[in-house]
């Protein structure tokens, strides 16, 4: 891969991530499953388990149907305080690119604003992504969200 190709691929990964974050930060949850292929893996797991090789997650979906179920439940079943996320992402690197499968790693910080209008750091962590192309669009085949923050404050409703 030439340097120019690498930078172009990097820009495409960043662009995908920014669209993903924009959907979550602006209450367009229904768009969220569409960033994944149907046969996908999505997981939010604390760093202490990830580092120890232990599997316990806080969210684990093994196909896009489970992502859509999560949205449906958040919209219609679960009770939680209204809130807004703002994701700040950085440090995106491509860790491999082989036969159409791109793997990336990047950092995130989520600031949450609650109903009282108070903003606080909700989570810091990293994304470990596997990205493939489908119908001319990059989509996540796997997204592992590994959070450094030890504890989830109150609850986690909106995905990261």
């Amino acid at each position: 891969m030439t340097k120019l190709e690498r930078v172009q691929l990097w820009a495409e990964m960043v662009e995908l991530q920014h669209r993903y974050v924009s959907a979550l930060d602006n209450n367009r949850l229904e768009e969220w499953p569409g960033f994944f292929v149907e046969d996908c893996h999505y997981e939010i797991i604390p760093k202490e388990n990830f580092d120890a090789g232990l599997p316990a997650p806080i969210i684990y979906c093994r196909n896009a149907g489970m992502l859509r179920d999560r949205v449906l439940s958040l919209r219609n079943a679960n009770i939680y305080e209204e809130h807004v996320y703002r994701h700040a992402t950085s440090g995106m690197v491509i860790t491999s690119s082989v036969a159409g499968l791109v793997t990336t790693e990047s950092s995130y910080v989520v600031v949450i604003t609650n109903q009282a209008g108070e903003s606080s750091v909700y989570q810091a962590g990293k994304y470990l992504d596997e990205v493939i192309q489908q119908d001319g669009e990059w989509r996540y085949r796997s997204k592992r969200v590994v959070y450094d923050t030890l504890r989830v404050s109150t609850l986690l409703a909106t995905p990261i």
Partner: protein
Amino acid sequence: MSDSTFEPRLVVGTPSNKGSQRSLLFPQPDGAAVPYEVFSSQEVYTREQERIFRGPVWSFLGLEAEIPNVGDFKSTFIGDTPVVVTRTAEGLACWVNRCAHRGAIVCRLKRGNAARHTCVYHQWSFAANGDLQGVPFRGGHKGMVGMPEDFDRQEHNLCKLRVDSYRGLLFATFRDETPPLPDYLGAEMRPWLDRIFHKPIVYLGCTRQYSKSNWKLYFENVKDPYHASLLHLFHTTFNIFRAGMKARSIPDASHGLHSLITVTKQELETDTAAAYSQQNLRSMDKGFALEDSALLNQIREFEEMTTNQIQTIFPQLVVQQIHNTLVARQLLPKGPSSFELVFHFFGYADDTPELRELRVLQANLVGPAGYISMEDTEATELVQRGTVRDGEKHSYIAMARGAPEQTDTVITENLIRRFWVGYQKLMGY
């Protein structure tokens, strides 16, 4: 530990301080009215640390499966006192994580393996069992005097606690006169712990939640089967059929502080997954249905097909079986108005890959983002915020109050009332 720690401490100071050491008024003898002050008072909280967490109880520390090898340790808490539990060649040990020298935290890691623990401040070092082993410059240095003549190393060990294990559940107590652990758990609770911990387990990791509410509000919540179908709307929304269930709501007979709630499918189905997907997920008027209901499957692994077993062992443990998720929840108070909840997930050593995968998948149901649990901390925080003032006013906990002996129901607040009666006795209120 000496008896003196059990007695309520006299407040030494100004008359106004003494005046604040009043007793709380629980207006009803059966625990049906709880003064809101217990949820936010620093004075109550401090008394709880002395009379409960350092009192005649066994506090849950974690699972033996977290420290399987000699030298393995974990840092945790009893109440808000930092402690370390570790496995030595001679057996389990637990000590207060505070250097005998100047009071610094000795063990700064959450988990690890070590034969000895050294305080970084002045490098006093301790064996895994808490015995003081080394004091730098004890004998002086280059003609300078060291520790005094009467320094006796054995008088400066870490504060050691009684520690014991019941079927792989680790507990410790500050008090010599706390009954033996099996007696403390009691005849009503032990068979249900035996049921869950009937064969070797494997630790699957933990998730942690921090709630800005009093720890006892969580205890009320896990002793409250009445709220389950009203607060948690997941099953209702997706029309998941739940009728025809058999229930138990059983308190510990002696003090009422422990309790058991079970919900059991009555029909003998070997494949409830099929039952759920064929009958129960059919949408009704609103048209909500899960696309993939695999996380509601249940593979039979106990004789009685309980969908839920929620068992509280006062003051720091809730054992949970929901479908095939197995969790030991550890409840840690963090001041009067917050607590940490640690969900320790586990499976069995002989799990099939399919069963292990289902356990991990069903982590979606419980924990900080759980479909049927995320509302619990929302609710406890609403109570915390609602009760910040008017501490002398009280709640009204009366569901099924007229049938205190009835145990085959989930529409009851009996376990909460029994809890508060036991609490009052321990606290001397």
